[in-house]
């Protein structure tokens, strides 16, 4: 009886460990979709928590490689309630927050960070979770909260050499309304304000040409041309200029935010290493 039991156990172990290897080798070969199915097969077959955890993290890696962050998020959410050891649940929680961040759901990242103490016996979020929180706050433009979290994080890490305080120079974002108003009253000024002098000069030239053509035509008694070409040209480029200034300011702000977030991310990850 004992011998039969041992043989059964060995054969099951061999079957499952071979499948795990199949999934891993598929992953290593870059066949992420097939590897994902192989990991799911382990989850379907195995009741062993250690095997299940290997499969969960394996499948998460596959989904991340495929850029399916939302799918990874939902997949990990379903495993949050399983009775795994707390360290594993914490890793699942972190992976879920990471996929949520990569998927661009920044408010949800903050919610996942806030849930941490309730789901992990009152423990404080891990340093990586705090990093995600800071980055998510940056993405949302909540500089004050991001700065506070950043300063607390630096103090907690207690590095030997204090890094430069990045939040002393938070990106100065430009106002969309201001750009619109400027373009409304001074042609090209909105584009200048958005940091695009080339476009500003082009806008000024075209609008001036419209006005000039209108005035000259009017003086020469070409009234129809004055209105339909001069005024229409000016009007079209003036309204277009206002809208363009708005777009340019948005692009400028986004670029600034991304650059700042990149700097913060690099510094925080260096600190963690």
């Amino acid at each position, binding site marked *: 009886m004992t011998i039969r039991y041992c043989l059964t156990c060995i054969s099951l172990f061999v079957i499952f460990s071979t499948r795990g290897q199949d999934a891993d080798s598929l992953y290593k070969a870059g066949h992420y*979709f*097939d590897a*994902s*199915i192989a990991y*799911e*097969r382990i989850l*379907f077959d195995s009741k062993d928590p250690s095997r299940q955890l290997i499969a969960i993290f394996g499948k998460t890696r596959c989904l991340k490689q495929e850029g399916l962050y939302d799918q990874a998020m*939902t*997949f990990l959410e*379903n495993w949050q309630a399983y009775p795994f050891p707390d360290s594993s649940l914490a890793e699942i929680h972190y992976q879920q927050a990471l996929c949520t961040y990569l998927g661009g759901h920044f408010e949800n990242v903050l919610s996942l960070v806030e849930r941490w103490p309730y789901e992990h016996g009152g423990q404080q979020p891990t340093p990586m979770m705090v990093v995600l929180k800071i980055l998510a706050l940056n993405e949302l433009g909540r500089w004050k909260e991001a700065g506070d979290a950043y300063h607390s994080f630096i103090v907690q890490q207690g590095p030997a050499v204090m890094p430069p305080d990045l939040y002393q120079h938070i990106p100065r974002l430009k106002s969309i309304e201001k750009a619109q108003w400027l373009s409304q009253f001074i042609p090209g000024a909105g584009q200048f304000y958005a940091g695009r002098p080339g476009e500003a000069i082009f806008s000024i030239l075209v609008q001036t040409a419209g006005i000039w053509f209108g005035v000259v035509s009017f003086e020469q*008694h*070409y*009234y*129809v*041309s004055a209105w*339909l*070409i001069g005024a*229409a040209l000016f009007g079209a480029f003036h309204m277009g200029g206002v809208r363009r200034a708005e777009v340019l300011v948005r692009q400028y702000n986004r670029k600034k935010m991304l650059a700042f977030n990149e700097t913060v991310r690099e510094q925080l990850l260096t600190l963690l290493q």
Partner: protein
Amino acid sequence: MKLVLPLILLILSFSHVRGQQFGFSKELRFAQYLQDKEAVPEAIRVLEQVDTTALSRAQKDSLFYMLGWAAYSIRQLDKSIGSFLKVSADFSKYDKSRFFAAYCQAFQGNQTVQGRGRMDSASDGLRELVLPDSTLRELRDFQLAGIALLKRDYKAFLSEQQQFTYSSYIFEKEEHRMQLYYDKLKGFKHKSPVLAGVYSALVPGLGKWYAGKKKQGIAAFLPVISLAALTYEAYRKDGVKSARFIGFGTLFTVFYIGDIWGSTLSVKIRRNEFYKEYDNKILFDMHIPLRNFFN
């Protein structure tokens, strides 16, 4: 001793068959597990990788039905049609497979240029069914009526519509709506592209207005009239040989002819938009009773 060898072979072949059956049902359960977790593309991959050569007819039917259903749920309609049509008549869900295959064919037929052949296949497939249940027979007539409308075969629609009882809660509303769609499609007034062109030649943009595209008509009127005014001004002040007149005159001519040509096309575009709108409504109403009846 003579009996031992055949006995061993028998036991071995029996255990082999049992093993295959176990393996197949496990694959099916795994595919179902994936579908339940909304990993449908993965489920399709698993089902497609099953080796069908050693499967019994019943196992193949289960496999094709499941594959058809999975493909249908993520709108891989070609794969869905192919799988549903492979289900044999002995299978318990044969009727359901055929109904859904026909619906998918009708849908695909409506989306493609060579669609009529597919819709004919859909109708033929439904007519071949031997249906003992009167509700199911009426559902077939309803589907055939829908396909007839998609083909604009009004005579065939009226013939199928004779079978509507308007009494089953499953498709009573849809039967009424199908009647309404028939009235709308039949009553659709075919406008003349030539007349639209003539209208636009008389008043720029009027052809598009006539075709039912009023905003486009106004949008066409304004530039043509503006260019006409500029051309007239150039003619009045500078004469026929002036560069100003030739420039604006050329622009006006291009826009004017372009508007006439656009008006003739807009009749066809409007007609296609109208048909597309009603095709979508018909397909939607064909789908609801299928889901209600079979699920």
